[in-house]
């Protein structure tokens, strides 16, 4: 299997691979740093820091349909290579810690989606947690898994087929994704993995891989054929960045159907002991909870079968209705109506108006950011905050015609 050198190849019908880094010419990395007249590197270092801050404001997927309801399986490699200490204290602990942060962020951005965790070691795969919409169970399981031993080799085939068993029953309008965190350079498969890749493609499952060691050929083919992404980490902060890339909803594949899903919006009843009619009841979510039964007064009652739950979103165990609250859906709106990136101007154009219109602070950076719609001026910090958390321009929303 020969390496292909960039865009000039036309032998295969898939997209050409990028040239490998060692195949390119010399990179003169020392030329990036430039000294100013006094010999100090301060300006260059500030520029590099500024650019890395700006990198966080990502491209918006305007006018592209996004998969809002996602079913994601995360496969974590628990083989012997995870005991390597190049990530402190070892790869497994570091991965599990970052996964907890990932799960929190994932449910923050995709409140009506579900996540399941699979681990693979000793040539087998097993489910750590089932597909569920509640972050607490996943985080508890991740915390417990820190003590497990790393032994044997991972099996890509087994973990993928375990994930497919559940994902293939998911309805067509949801997105089916698998994220593999692979640290080993080998995999032990009972059958031909290329057949499995064809099955994945036909089931429209998108597989992405984050490699902890090096690029592996079979992962490249896997991710390319299913439409996912493949990255190899450089260090821990890069690992975190790559994980967070998977938090935002991916563009929906053109073949996914869209339909109306039946959902319930239960009322939250807050009852106190002084009410006459209130009766304590069990919550359905505690049926398999080993911490002991919990009789509570208030809760969310399913509008179809009146079963009680303590938290949303949840799928009613009795009647199967998905229960959400309106703010959960509202959390995803900013993906549908993303905020345009602000235009960068050099600060010298704005002699008169020296104040950021959001935080009223002085404009100290050398570049200021202007909203293309209302032309108000913001400083760099506010621009980052607006695009990452706020998702709306503070001055545009004063316009009465905005929704």
């Amino acid at each position: 299997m020969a390496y292909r050198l960039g865009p000039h190849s036309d032998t295969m019908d898939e997209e050409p691979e990028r040239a490998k880094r060692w195949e390119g010419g010399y990179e003169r990395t020392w030329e990036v740093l430039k000294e100013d007249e006094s010999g100090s590197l301060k300006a260059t270092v500030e520029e590099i820091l500024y650019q890395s801050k700006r990198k966080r404001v990502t491209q918006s997927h305007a006018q592209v349909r996004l998969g809002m309801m996602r079913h994601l399986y995360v496969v974590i490699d628990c083989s012997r290579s995870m005991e390597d200490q190049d990530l402190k204290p070892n790869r497994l602990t570091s991965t599990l810690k970052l996964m907890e942060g990932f799960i929190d962020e994932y449910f923050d951005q995709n409140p009506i989606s579900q996540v399941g965790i699979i681990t693979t070691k000793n040539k087998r795969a097993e489910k750590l947690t089932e597909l569920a919409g509640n972050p607490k169970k996943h985080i508890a399981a991740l915390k417990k898994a820190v003590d497990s031993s790393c032994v044997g080799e991972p099996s890509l085939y087994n973990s993928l087929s375990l994930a497919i068993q559940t994902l293939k029953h998911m309805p067509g309008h949801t997105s089916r994704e698998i994220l593999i965190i692979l640290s080993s350079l080998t995999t032990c498969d009972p059958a031909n993995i290329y057949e499995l890749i064809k099955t994945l493609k036909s089931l429209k499952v998108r597989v992405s891989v984050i490699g902890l060691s090096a690029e592996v050929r079979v992962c490249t083919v896997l991710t390319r054929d299913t439409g996912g992404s493949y990255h190899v980490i450089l260090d821990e902060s890069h690992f975190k960045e790559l994980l967070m890339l998977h938090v935002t909803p991916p563009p929906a594949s053109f073949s996914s159907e869209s339909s109306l899903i039946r959902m319930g919006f239960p009322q939250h009843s807050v009852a106190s002991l002084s009410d006459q009619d209130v009766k304590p009841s069990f919550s359905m979510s505690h049926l398999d909870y080993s911490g002991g039964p919990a009789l509570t007064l208030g809760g969310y009652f399913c509008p179809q079968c009146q079963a009680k739950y303590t938290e949303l979103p949840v799928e009613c165990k009795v009647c199967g209705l998905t229960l959400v609250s309106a703010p959960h859906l509202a959390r995803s709106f900013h993906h549908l109506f993303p905020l345009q990136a602000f235009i960068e101007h050099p600060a010298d154009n704005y002699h008169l108006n020296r104040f950021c219109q959001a935080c009223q602070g002085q404009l100290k950076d050398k570049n200021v950011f202007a909203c293309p719609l209302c032309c108000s001026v913001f400083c760099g910090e506010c621009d980052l905050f607006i695009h990452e958390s706020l998702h709306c321009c503070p001055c545009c929303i004063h316009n009465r015609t905005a929704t």
Partner: protein
Amino acid sequence: MASEDELNLLVIVVDVNPIWWGQQGQREPEFTLCKCLDAIMVMGNSHMAMTRTNRLAVIASHCQDSHFLYPSKTWKSGDSGGDEISSSRDGKYELLAVANNLIAEEIKNIMTKTEVTGNSTDTLMAGSLAKALCFGQEMKSRILVIKAADDCALQYMNFMNVIFAAQKQNILIDACVLDSDSGLLQQACDITGGLYLKIPQKVALAQYLLWVFLPDSEQRSQLVLPQPAHVDYRAACFCHRNLIEIGYVCSVCLSIFCNFSPICTTC
């Protein structure tokens, strides 16, 4: 107790819709905008007098825009251009005197200079809250909203964006409602963990502010405060605007309908 160096910011967002206040002045002459601002100044002074590290900001939310009443731009940049107005003649603590004078000056400027277009009796709170969030980025802060006029239905999405941003930054949003209940503010208080109170008697505004809203979040667990209101989280369907308990949600655009149809009208 919080560490000595941590700054605590209280942002008071006041609804100064002139149409509502004008009507209010005719309904109840003993409670006007001046009295409301007096109560707010008392609250602000009390907050700043509690600890040296407490900070204050006041934003006035007008029909089409929102303005910072305190601190003014020249003050924040560090140069004390307010020497002319800061001399207090009654021995009041300098910071409080400056704050009161600045607030009074700015509100006079705003009410005389801002033009009122249309006769809408609702205010756009989302913009003021967004500015408050941007202002309080570096420090631990909380927001107190004093709402007079009704909700504006157009700003639901922006309002929810602001609420989620506040929740992520652990910023409490408290609400003190003068006239009619506001569903949006009830949701904001519920999601961020703040207090919602509809005042039975407007003239006693200062008492309610000092009793309920002056303590910060750590102290509230030790006090007996008004019970949280029952928040109606049911969604409104897009076709009839009725509140529904079971609905159909489009998987692509998340719009909610009460009846099933094979085609989503939004997308």
